[in-house]
């Protein structure tokens, strides 16, 4: 109980003194996770929608695989990305290992299946509702995908937020590919892991509270901007 109280005190102290390290770590966390979210959404939203409307031979297998990939172990993803980006790996020449870009790549791999799978579920229902109308209007495949994405945007926002939640809270993969280097690749989750290892539970908890607050603020902001509740019944 003392540790939790001390953690809350540490969190308040860090926030209200605008601790320089905390600000840097928080901004890097946001930069990495939001970048991964944008890239993953650009892939997963059209792909999940396409999967909902397209019939092809191995569709069920593709959907089952996608669902299975939602549970990708982050450390395994981290290890694979590490091997690919290491000096002896095929992309070693790019010199991306232990950079925020490597962390973004790992997070994109982790959250894309999650966003695509939720998108597919949501778009499948919307497609069942719109199918006859869009076929009757002689729409092209691209027009169908765009219509479903636009009309299902609030559900897709939830899918994206689920992806953001997984990305911002992820530690295993980014620890491996980022290296948790101070002032370079240290983010909130890896900093928490480090402080816990050092036995500084108060600081670790403080960073944890900041992480939770950050996730809440981002979610509330996006909900407010997208007016999810006000127009939820559309």
């Amino acid at each position, binding site marked *: 109980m003392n540790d939790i109280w001390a953690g809350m005190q540490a969190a308040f102290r860090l926030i209200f003194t605008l601790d320089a390290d905390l600000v840097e770590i928080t901004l890097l966390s946001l930069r990495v996770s939001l970048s991964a979210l944008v890239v993953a959404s650009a892939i997963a939203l059209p792909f999940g929608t396409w999967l909902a409307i397209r019939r092809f031979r191995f569709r069920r297998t593709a959907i089952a695989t996608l669902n299975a990939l939602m549970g990708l172990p982050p450390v395994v993803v981290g290890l694979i990305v590490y091997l690919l980006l290491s000096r002896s790996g095929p992309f070693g020449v790019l010199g991306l290992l232990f950079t925020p870009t490597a962390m973004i790549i790992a997070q994109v791999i982790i959250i894309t299946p999650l966003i695509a799978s939720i998108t597919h579920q949501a778009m499948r229902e919307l497609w069942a*509702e*719109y199918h*006859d*109308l869009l076929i009757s209007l*002689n729409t092209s495949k691209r027009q169908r995908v765009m219509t479903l994405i636009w*009309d299902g945007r609030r559900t897709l926002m939830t899918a994206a937020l689920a992806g953001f939640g997984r990305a911002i809270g992820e530690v295993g993969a980014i620890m491996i590919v980022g290296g948790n280097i101070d002032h370079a690749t240290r983010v909130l989750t890896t900093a928490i892991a480090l402080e816990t290892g050092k036995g500084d539970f108060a600081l670790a908890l403080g960073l944890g509270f900041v992480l939770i607050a950050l996730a809440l603020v981002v979610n509330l902001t996006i909900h407010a901007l997208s007016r999810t509740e006000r127009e939820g*019944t559309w």
Partner: protein
Amino acid sequence: MVDPQMSVSLADVVVKRRGKNVLGPINLDLGGAGFTMVIGPNGAGKTTLLKVLHGVERVSGGTVQWTVPDDQARQAQAYVFQSPIMLRRSVRQNLSYPLQLLALPKSEITRRVDQWAGNIGLQDALDSPAPRLSGGEKQKLALGRALIRQPKVLFLDEPCANLDGRSTREIESLLTAAATAGTKIIMTTHDIGQARRLATNILFLLGGSLHESGPASEFFNSPRTSEAKAFLKGDIVE
């Protein structure tokens, strides 16, 4: 007036589901202006025939041949479903959607949306969410969304089912105006009274087969088959 080239021929058209005939074989030529009403009991194949004509139901055998290329034929058609499908958008956006697909200029879209919102009596609800409209309003919006494209052929699948008398009258009045403006209307109905009021031609289906077809006056005054006579009398026919 209706494009004289927009007519369709069905030759030995058959639709099968799970190995069972649900429609056909049907041989039919459809053209000319006015209302063609497709009537018959439940399961007669009315909706299937409408979807075959519109090209959204694949035939298991036979051919459906419009007198213009298929792409042109589809672009010149519109379809209104029995349960209106509303896009999760405002009334205005529902009306403008088919025009955006045609890539019309914004000013033309605005002009037509305002005109059709007035025609269907929803000018005060333009910014309301379409899914929240009443059943009658939804059906009028679906009809407006179909007619705003100025189709040469309009298919309607029991557009007045579950509507009260007032809404039915409003829908019929919109359809009559469209027919007068030159749109060919092909419509299914269970309502014999409605068929009597509107029909120029009748297609009477029973058990997936076309039992009778011809001018409405002939069908109602002197039906040729005993099934048609029984159907008009209000007897149960299967």
